[in-house]
């Protein structure tokens, strides 16, 4: 597993271990004081029927069994998985592409960077109407563009098969935040590596493949894992743009979970849903880490082997 790498120490230094534990101690304390309790509570609640305001009633595995007969559970799992599988790689590629462009030294670059970051700070509520217009079947910008090629575009938000792609498209306007992380990562690449590559006759594409990509791979790993976790917890976009419709085509997992928790007063079931989601993401993350050894390059790791 990737996270077990970096070095395989033969002997652990007591002093180093002690320091490490001191450094992570705030987190540990915070976990016991604030984070861990509520998480554990939600696990316990998932084995109960809880309407939020009355004492929970023990339910054993009922909530977990209920899921198998809940068609909306499977629907929301499907919607969210498709979203994650498509949107996350897209966001990574687009984000990296923009970051590389914005890492060049040309005029007005500071302005460009600011502009690309801008949509990330605008709350979705205030731009929802604009998106409705852009994605409109009859008056929309997207369909106008398609019509230049003789294509009559669909009702992006109103047709079940197009609503999810529309939300994926929308999510790309948020890559500005992820772009920052790439930019920071690109700063860490020593320029002498490029010089060396150039001496070896590498063109720009080769430099990207053999210098930039490996050097930034830990950041890509980060974006992949964090992006995946975020994708499985998307709530605001479908809530505001489609309310899960049409015909549950954008019923994201958290929308289903939210309704059960706060509208149907089934917090027990919602907790069970969240723990199933938790297992699902955790397994995916473990798999990503396990296979990351093949493509993620840590400078420190190499030097120690």
């Amino acid at each position, binding site marked *: 597993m990737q996270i077990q790498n970096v070095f395989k120490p033969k002997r652990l230094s007591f002093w180093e271990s002690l320091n490490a534990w001191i450094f992570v101690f705030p987190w540990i304390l915070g976990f016991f004081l604030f984070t861990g309790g509520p998480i554990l509570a939600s696990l316990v609640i998932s084995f109960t029927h809880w309407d939020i305001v009355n004492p929970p009633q023990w339910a054993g595995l009922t909530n977990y069994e209920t899921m198998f007969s809940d068609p909306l559970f499977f629907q929301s799992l499907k919607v969210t998985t498709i979203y994650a599988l498509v949107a996350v790689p897209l966001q990574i590629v687009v984000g990296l592409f923009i970051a590389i462009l914005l890492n060049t030294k040309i005029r007005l670059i500071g302005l460009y960077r600011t502009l690309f970051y801008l949509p990330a700070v605008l709350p979705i509520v205030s731009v929802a109407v604009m998106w409705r217009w852009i994605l409109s079947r009859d008056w929309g910008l997207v369909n106008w563009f398609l019509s230049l090629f003789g294509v009559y575009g669909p009702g992006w938000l109103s047709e079940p098969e197009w609503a999810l792609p529309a939300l994926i498209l929308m999510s790309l*306007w948020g890559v500005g935040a992820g772009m920052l992380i790439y930019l920071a990562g690109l700063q*860490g690449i020593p320029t002498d590596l490029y010089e060396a590559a150039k001496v070896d006759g590498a063109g720009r594409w080769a430099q990207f493949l053999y210098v930039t990509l490996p050097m930034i791979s830990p950041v890509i790993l980060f974006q992949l894992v964090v992006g995946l976790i975020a994708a499985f917890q998307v709530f605001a976009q479908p809530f505001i743009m489609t309310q899960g419709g049409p015909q549950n085509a954008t019923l994201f997992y958290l929308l289903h*979970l939210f309704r059960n928790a706060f509208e149907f007063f089934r917090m027990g079931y919602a907790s069970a849903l969240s723990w199933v989601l938790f297992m699902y*993401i955790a397994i995916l993350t473990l798999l990503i880490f396990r296979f990351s050894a093949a493509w993620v390059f840590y400078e420190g790791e190499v030097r120690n082997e």
Partner: protein
Amino acid sequence: MTAAGQPLHAKRKGSRAAGIDWVKVLAHIILLAGSVMFLMPFIYVLSTSLKTAGDVYTFPPEFIPDPFAWENYPDALTAMPFDVFFINTILLAVGRIAGLTLSCSLAGFAFAKLRWRGRNTLFFIVLLTLMIPTEVTLIPRYILFAKLGWVGSFAPLLVPGFFAENAFFVFLFRQFFMTMGQDLIDSARIDGCSFVGLFWRIIVPNAKPVFAVVAIYIIQNNWNSFLLPMIYLTDRAKYTLALGLRLFNEQYYSQTHLLMAASVFVVVPIVILFFFMQRYFIQGVVFTGSKG
């Protein structure tokens, strides 16, 4: 591909005289086109902020307001004590930056660069805390803070920040620290540098970009998040900007034009801040394995 990660500024200045650098031109074209697309949401907000209440609903939207409703700005900004909200937001941002950058970077350092038993298990537990949706921990957490008597104060939003509650940042710091050359660290250790000194004198100076990114993220979050602040800060005197904006959203009488005007007022400072900060974290702080 215009610039494959290779900073174009590595090119010698003299080449400019030789003629047009087509790669730069291409970069400009792509960036310009992208900027137009990415600027659109803001233009939309700006234009709506200058429309009268009746014009807001025109569809498809017209980007140039007719007439211009300049009074939306004074109307929006005097409708609520935005100065108080602004100060509260800044206070929270400063407190959270202080707490989170310090505690998360220390934890990230331990996970990335120190050797100790239980490290990977613990790190995975840190990550796992990200995977439980807040919807189901919201109420237990609220009950906890209610029992502590912290509800109604900044404490539930500030104090956990000092305990590295944000696993996302711990992970981010770890990833960045991991890319740093190990020999840098080893040579410092050989020179008799303590671990604290190592963190302070080697890691922090070489990781300014990531600290800047984390700071920006915290500010951005603090500017936009409303669920947790809303639940804990029930007193208007403690409201943040995001909570203030929500007050323009109502069931029957949403004052969209005022909401947009206030949004511009709220977003502009963070954009200006970003504009100046980006120079700082983009500035080539290049550490190399051989720099020592």
